[in-house]
């Protein structure tokens, strides 16, 4: 492999819409950048800000949070909680000096394989343009993203 | 000799590689051929060209290839989203590279190459239309830079339109200046004839010039300039806001900044230029302006707006010979006359030329051919 910078993007997404949308991209044999790894939770409402920080801390160059369109959440309105949580998360991430384009929230339905492809490609290019994330404070926030309980 | 035809896949491959990506989408429904205005006067089936090109069968590269007036009527209706006009352009480009373009076109393209305009006009005489009328040159402080169309600069009939424009824009208190004579042809029709290199040269010249002058907002009198500046220049580095004169006029008239006081007691019929209407969705602006003119009556052709029949001047047809009885402009003038119109009004230099020629050919002295701008100037 060449030494050119390949962005590493963690996608935190819900099972019902975005994960299924990514499945549809697959069944439709669409092609997209191989720079993403999906972490599936049942609902975007499950996505703890700590997961995002942990991904950046691990070395991710970008994090995509994705779920069902507002009104379409399989659990009625879990995604509205995600939406409400997001601005604070965005601010926090920016306070850590991480550029805005490295974190993104998208609603991608089970029917929108093409949208999934579009978002992944777009974000890969945006993050590629930003270059690797040199996050000075990686260790400083280690405790922030730790799990408080054993289970 | 056998009658079997054998596909040559090099042909479609080359077309697709040259940008004609929608070639293979065509499923031969015939909507395009059925929609094309050429049926009104002669046999020309663009579907035939596409089907032959898909299979690489002889016939796609024949004389018919140069018939298409790029009016976009078929593209609007194609159920498969085939970019028919763009395919015609691409095939023309490939054929032109082999030197097989029609003779008349070659002369025009020669002038484009040496003079920067298709009319064999002197490069330095681009502002000669001004005569003794005082005009302002764009100096960076003006809101709009007015880009004179070659046809307005060198064709005496169309020069009248730009002189009328000066009066109208001044009356409306518009902040504008003329680019000033060093501009080259916008290249829209040049590109549609397949002369890609010529177009790229023109575009490079204009982009450099206009960016150098600090132009932010272009004001254009021709729908062809409008179309290419809006849709094709951005990726070549020309990222300006582009407004057609009638759009600005509609704005001035509707907002009351331009008062139309004089009655113009004409029965007018409005012709939608293909590049203003179908290509850019501007149908209401010219009609709004005309309706605001006191004493003026506005009529419509049987096929109007989205369905309007082309004047026949686009895609390089302006520079090619068409027998009188096969000219769309002739059909349209006859229809205008039958509907009792005094004047055919439009908003495109090519349309004006096509109609004036048709008028001469038919000897219809009473019927006037006018640009919206001229009607407005008369109403000031």
């Amino acid at each position, binding site marked *: 492999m060449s030494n050119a910078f390949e962005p590493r993007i963690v996608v935190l997404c819900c099972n019902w819409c975005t994960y299924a949308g990514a499945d549809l991209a697959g069944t439709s044999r669409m092609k997209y950048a191989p720079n993403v790894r999906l972490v599936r939770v*049942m609902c975007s409402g499950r996505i703890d800000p700590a*997961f995002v920080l942990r991904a950046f801390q*691990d070395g991710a160059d970008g994090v995509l949070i994705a779920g069902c369109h507002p009104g379409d959440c399989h659990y009625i309105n879990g995604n509205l909680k995600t939406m409400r949580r997001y601005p604070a998360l965005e601010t926090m991430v920016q306070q850590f000096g991480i550029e805005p384009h490295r974190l993104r929230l998208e609603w991608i339905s089970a029917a929108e394989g093409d949208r999934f492809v579009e978002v992944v490609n777009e974000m890969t290019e945006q993050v590629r343009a930003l270059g690797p994330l040199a996050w000075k404070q990686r260790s400083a926030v280690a405790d922030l993203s730790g799990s408080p309980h054993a*289970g | 000799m056998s009658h079997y035809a054998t596909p040559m896949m090099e042909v479609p491959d080359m077309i697709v590689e040259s940008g004609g990506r929608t070639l293979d989408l065509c499923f031969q429904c015939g*909507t395009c*051929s059925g929609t094309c205005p050429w049926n009104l006067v002669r046999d020309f089936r663009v*579907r035939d060209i596409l089907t032959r090109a898909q299979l690489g069968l002889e016939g796609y590269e024949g004389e018919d290839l140069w018939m298409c007036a790029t009016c976009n009527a078929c593209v609007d209706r194609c*159920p498969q989203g085939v970019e028919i006009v763009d395919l015609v352009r691409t095939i023309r480009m490939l054929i032109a590279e082999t030197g097989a373009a029609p003779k008349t076109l070659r002369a025009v393209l020669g002038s484009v190459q040496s003079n920067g305009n298709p009319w064999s006009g002197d490069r330095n005489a681009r502002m000669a239309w001004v005569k003794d009328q005082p005009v302002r040159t764009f100096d960076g402080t003006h809101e709009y830079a007015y880009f004179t169309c070659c046809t307005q600069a060198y064709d005496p009939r169309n020069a009248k339109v730009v002189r009328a424009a000066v009066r109208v824009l001044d009356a409306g208190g518009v902040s504008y200046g003329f680019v000033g004579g060093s501009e080259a042809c916008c290249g829209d029709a040049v590109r549609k004839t397949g002369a890609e290199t010529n177009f790229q040269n023109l575009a490079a010249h204009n982009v450099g010039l206009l960016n150098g002058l600090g132009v932010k907002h272009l004001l254009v009198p021709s729908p062809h300039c409008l179309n290419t500046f809006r849709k094709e220049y951005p990726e070549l580095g020309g990222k300006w806001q582009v407004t057609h004169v009638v759009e600005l006029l509609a704005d001035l008239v509707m907002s009351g900044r331009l008062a139309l006081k004089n009655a113009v007691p004409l029965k007018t019929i409005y012709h939608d230029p293909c590049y203003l209407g179908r290509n850019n969705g501007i149908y209401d602006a010219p009609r709004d302006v005309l309706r605001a003119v006191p004493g003026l009556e506005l009529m419509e052709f049987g096929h109007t707006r989205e369905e309007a029949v082309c004047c026949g001047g686009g895609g390089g047809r302006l520079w090619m010979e068409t027998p009188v009885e096969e000219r769309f402009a002739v059909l349209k003038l006859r229809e205008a006359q039958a509907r009792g119109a005094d004047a055919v009004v439009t908003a495109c230099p090519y349309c004006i030329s096509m109609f004036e020629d048709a008028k001469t050919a038919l000897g219809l002295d009473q019927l006037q051919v006018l640009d919206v701008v001229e009607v407005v100037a008369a109403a000031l």
Partner: protein
Amino acid sequence: MEPRIGVFVCHCGTNIAGVVDVNRVVEAAARWPDVVHAVEYKFMCSDPGQGLVKDAIVKHDLSRVVVAACSPRMHEPTFRKACAMAGLNPYLFEMANIREHCSWVHEDKEAATLKAIDIVRAAVAKARLLEPLQTRFVPVTQKVLVVGGGVAGIQAALDIANAGTKVVMVERAQSIGGHMAQLDKTFPTLDCSACILTPKMVQVAQHPNIELMTYSEVESVDGFVGNFTVKIRRKARYVDEAVCTACGVCIEKCPKKVPSEFDEGMMPRKAIYRSFPQAVPGRPVIDKESCTYFKNGKCKICEIFCEPKAIRWDDQDQVVEEKVGAILVATGMGLIDPHGLSQWGYGRYPNVLTGLEFERLNNATGPTGGRIVLKDGSTPKSVAILHCIGSRDRNHKEYCSRVCCMYALKFAHLIKEKTHATVYNFYIDMRCFGKGYEEFYNRLLHEGVKFVRGKAAFVTDQAANDDEKGKLVVSAESTTLGEVLRVPVDMVILASAVAPQKDAEAVARQFGMGLSPDGFFMEKHPKLEPFSTATDGVFLAGACQSPKDIPDTVAHGAAAASTALSLISRGTVEVESATAEVLTDFCSGCKVCQDVCPYGAISFHEDTKLAEVNASVCKGCGTCVATCPSGAIVGRHFNDRQILAQIDAAFLWE
């Protein structure tokens, strides 16, 4: 004790192995801690593939299983079952999706192989931390809700009811029957539509196991597979159903006329009406919006003439609640708005009709009593039928409507039979794929119907010569001839596209279904489960899933009914095991979780100041888990440690 993990990598024929080097994936996995067994196999989901898993669990004493293959949405249940059969708790299984999310979406083999290794590593990381969960079952309510009373809903309802299960059928219109009731004859056999449909409609109304609610709509759906609670709004009918004898005198006497929806607005109905003469139920309803009495307080003529005194001015909408085990959605199709089809003359020329308008024109109960006539009452001498209007057209609907070619043939036959007019069909492709369909096409050729291979470009009334004066002119290229035709005719029928019902989005949302890109309801699997949806216990039947003709609709309805019945007769369903749980040691009593739970599954004990999750209500979305500021809620099967482990393993970071 350290977990003992088994990793199984599937080739899926060449679907995975054609892009991903599965051997490298196995080699990598074998080196990871706790992986005691790693193998590849051609088809993991096959019997021998599952056998491989079962055997390895026993032979290698596996305590975790990871299968790297397709999407867990496809085969997670399969492998969970295999694990369970070998005595391993099914929740100790984890799936790595290296097909939909890898081999199918990447072309670069090296990048895809590296990605596949990452995906499997993350799955192993999660598997290491998985915990066994108890599978729980609840009983299934022995009743099915059928929404929509078209032929699909009718077929399904009868099948279910005949099997001895109770059915509630909810129909929005005054009568059941749907679009099929509007048709005159049906292709390819030319049976009279009403003759074959009305007996079935009556069976529905009279079936002891079916409760029919027409003029009603589902208001809300709660619960889950096996245990839905539905609220149904029964619109006020202003006619007492128990008293009305369906004599129809009121209808006759009512002076207020409005356009009839059933007749496509081509003839009027009254303010008190039934959709059509053979409507089921036959008892009319008063349409409050049109009724003169409701508008200005005067009239009540219907009441005066109603002998049994059935009119009830104070009738109110009622909302009733039903508990059902399964829901079968059969809400049918809509039709494209023909006003967007102006180049073919619709809305411009009165003798341009849609297909459904022609059905009514040709129907004995329709506006002309079944006479095929022009707007001026005269008989057409020539008719053009234009195929694919709005179908197979990116400017409108991209899909094929699947019924138009055949109904166009049917129309051609009926026109020939009734008027002897010349009939032209303008088509792109003739799609006559069903049983007896090609034969029907042939029959029409024998009858002298003219076929032009080319789509109609436009219809105009502007005559180019004397023959065209007063005619509608259809222009089309005969692509076989290479000749553009102008064909003057008296009448034009547009085979206008079938479309999703207008409120498809709202209906989909109500029942937790998705929409396919074409706007119809999305099935669980396009080939193998076309009658199930993403929501367990919600099934699909008929044209609401995709355009269908009657034979396909009926088959689909019966299939959906049998799938619903298999759920009903199973008697119990498994409920979510991956629920949330409050760790009381950490709960600070802030109650935030209570506010965010979409299902009200969290109760707060005022005495202990602690929250508790009701496991039988919790659906496991995990919103509370992410919200709890004290980190006191664990989301089973998706707990923090598992997810963080997965993130940590998502890439080889350095």
